[in-house]
């Protein structure tokens, strides 16, 4: 087992454990903290793939900013412990097996497709390559993201505004 695979296994196990805990925790804050574990392990996985910039963004934006938003929402709603509701029969007896089947099928096909796939030539995508690609070839989508942010701004204001109580 190469060190890469060992590190990958540890990080992947952390990510999966975090995700499972995120769903099973009954208190929203605990779920949010589990999510941080997922985010950080994902950042580690990106680092393992050689995507340093993406790993940094993952920590700064997801692990930092997005988590702040999550915690704010939890505090905003003053959410206490969740109550478990009875999941509908349909969801339990049809949805869950179908979901599991789907997951296994996807996993099977990916495993089959990649098992005899030649390992990609060792290519480390440096931040410089990424920048060149982003700001030369992908200028158009890059500028478009600013409009995407504008839409989000409008949405935040439209949905979160508070009317004057007059």
């Amino acid at each position, binding site marked *: 087992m190469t060190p890469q695979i060992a590190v990958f296994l540890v990080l992947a196990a952390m990510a999966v454990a975090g995700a499972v805990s995120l769903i099973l925790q009954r208190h929203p804050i605990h779920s949010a903290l589990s999510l941080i574990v997922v985010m950080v392990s994902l950042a580690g996985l990106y680092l393992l793939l050689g995507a340093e910039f993406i790993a940094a963004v993952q920590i700064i934006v997801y692990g930092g900013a997005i988590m702040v938003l999550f915690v704010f929402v939890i505090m905003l709603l003053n959410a206490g412990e969740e109550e478990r509701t009875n999941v509908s029969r349909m969801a339990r007896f049809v949805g869950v097996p179908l979901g599991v089947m789907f997951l296994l099928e*996807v996993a099977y*096909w*990916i495993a*089959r*497709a*990649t*098992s*005899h*796939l030649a390992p990609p030539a060792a290519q480390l995508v440096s931040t410089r390559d990424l920048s060149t690609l982003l700001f*030369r*070839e*992908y*200028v*158009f*989508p890059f500028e*478009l*993201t600013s*409009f*995407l942010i*504008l*839409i*989000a701004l*409008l*949405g935040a*204001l*439209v*949905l979160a505004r508070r009317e004057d109580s007059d």
Partner: protein
Amino acid sequence: MSLPLQDLCRVAPEIVLCAFAMLVMLLAPIVPRARHGILSTISVLGAGIALAATRFPAMYPGAAYSGLFRADAFSLFVHWIVCGAAFLVILGSTSYLQREDLDAGEFCALILLATAGMGIMAGAQELLTAFIGLEMSSIASYILASYKRDAPRSNEAGMKYFLLGSFATAFFLYGIALFFGASGSTRLDMMTPLANDSARTLLKMGLGFIFVGLAFKVAAAPFHLWAPDVYEGAPAPVTALLSTGPKAATFALALRILADVGAASPLWFWALWVAAVLSMFAGNLAALVQTSLKRMLAYSSVAHAGYILVALATAAATDHAEAGIAAALFYLVGYALVQLGAFLIVAQLGGPGERHVEIEDFAGVARRQPAMAACLSLFLLSLLGLPVTVGFLGKFYVFNAALESNLIWLAILLGLNSVIAAYYYLRVIVAMYMLREPEQEIAAEPVPWTLSLVLWIASMGTVYIGLFPARVIGFAAKAALNMR
């Protein structure tokens, strides 16, 4: 590297839309609320200028921005649909916004930005660009669906749309990742022959995921369950937009993938076949039992997505791809005109707060508001596919294309479904013309001139294209030929 002027020309409609959206955003906080009509006027102007600006990509067809975007007859055609839809929706919703006391600025800016996103989907040659376009239109749609913040139903609609929509987006994105893994590029037009079987498997999976994401966005069965709730809960003018623009853009993207990616046709054919049949039946059978007109129209729009999917299946059956693509494009034009008109009438006749949208509330509308009743009847008849209207020709071309590619079963099921649909469309017309008015009088509100203008354009278009389809179908055929 320089920015050639031609590249800018090729995305001129998007530039106009985004510029006007920004102008509206700048003016919205400054203009006093009483005069928000100005913002609607500017936005209508913006959509109109964007429509006119399609001249530029028409003059300089070709790939722009290192091939990520492509201005050709096909994208031009879709641009007309989405810009036209935005123009009509903004114009038709001015009085609605005033009546419901909603801010016009954000509403119009969101519609303009969403339309820009749809335009990008229509011309995207690369999956990430298409994805950003899709997100622009989707995120704006989520916000617009819950725009009426004090109405719980509107909030519910926005929430449902957002949750399920993000799920579909995740599918789409995962599909892009697998596509990239297989071919080493997200470009649609530069597919290199795949190296081996494993890459082919990955590509198939990627295309499968992309299909699910797109099928959700057009509300095709079995991914349609969100549509009735969202269409019913969202403000009616927003529903008018949701059921036309984004659908046209998403179908355009699907067609583009079908045309560019060789592996997509054989893989998608059966998926399209099944989705088409399911959508037609699910939409029409559910529409039969609805009591709310808005909900009925929502289910009928699922059925219409099914009819368009028949055209897509025809395009995927390889031999007569051009006929299928042209039929889909023509159908989208007619469908957009009619659907817009119908939902805007519902917005008007529903009265303040859209309280009267049950079918029984429409009893006796013919006596109260004859012009509106006549327009709505025309639109419903076009949805039904009566000759002389554009709806008939749309179905005719799809039917023809299906027969030519030997998809006899699809053609038969399409005909059968049109017959089923007749029942519920006619039921509304019967209610309007033959039933007695409900006990408590529903006040007949005067129809604002903006709405009259929109309805006039829509109904004239319905009849005119229904009588003289040559130019539209001619252009659609040209657009289809241009793609291959």
